């Protein structure tokens, strides 16, 4: 019937000292992971797309397909 007195104080501080470094580290890891799995590949995809992009050729292909209202395909 004689138990040791339980911890009465500092409970929040103890929890924070344990969880805050973990939370901080995991957030940073998540940000770095997002950067290298999403943003860097996306930047590269855009760079590669525009490296050899011929706007006039694309315009003419679209015109021939008939999607514009201001210019009709060359046949008509």
């Amino acid at each position, binding site marked *: 019937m004689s138990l040791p007195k339980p911890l009465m104080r500092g409970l929040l501080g103890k929890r924070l000292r344990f969880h805050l470094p973990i939370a901080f580290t995991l957030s940073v890891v998540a940000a770095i992971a997002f950067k290298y799995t999403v943003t860097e590949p*996306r930047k590269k*995809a*855009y760079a590669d*797309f525009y490296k050899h992009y011929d706007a006039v050729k694309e315009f003419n*292909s*679209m015109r021939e397909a*008939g*999607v514009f209202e201001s210019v009709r395909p060359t046949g008509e």
Partner: protein
Amino acid sequence: MLRLPSVRLGGLVVRRASAALSSPVRMASHEVSQTVDMSQPMYWDRVDTPLPDRRYKDILTDSEKSLKQKEKGPWAQLSKEEKIALYRMSFLQTFPEMKQRSDEWKTVMGGIFIFLGFTGLLVWWQRIHVYPQRPHTFDPEWQEKQLQRMLDMRISPVEGISSKWDYEKGQWK
């Protein structure tokens, strides 16, 4: 016959007086639904607020009263049974009794599924009797023409749909 009503009236008066006296005890002794007097300190069994406003048994028998007197002295002199009796005077349930698991979750889950199923029936009826006709734009032929137009317009050419189409060969990459 003339004397009977007066006897019954006397009995009613006695019963009403005892009902008024018994309300602090809060036992369901009379026929009406018991009303809790919220202006008086209440007793409760809760894990999150463990100390109620009043002792569980507030009307003590003589033996209980003498035990309460003994409690005022050194506690080492109390036997184990006496300590347990004192606890049961102050509290109805112990913490393990309060925390006992029940099968209520089965009832809850069953009720949830019953109502989900009923809602499903309602939605089914609604689809048949309420919804308007399916728009023609969902037909496969229209969807094909729509996709072709998206590719012609070069929708999402960098990472999206048009980037997956090979324009030279006229097929998906």
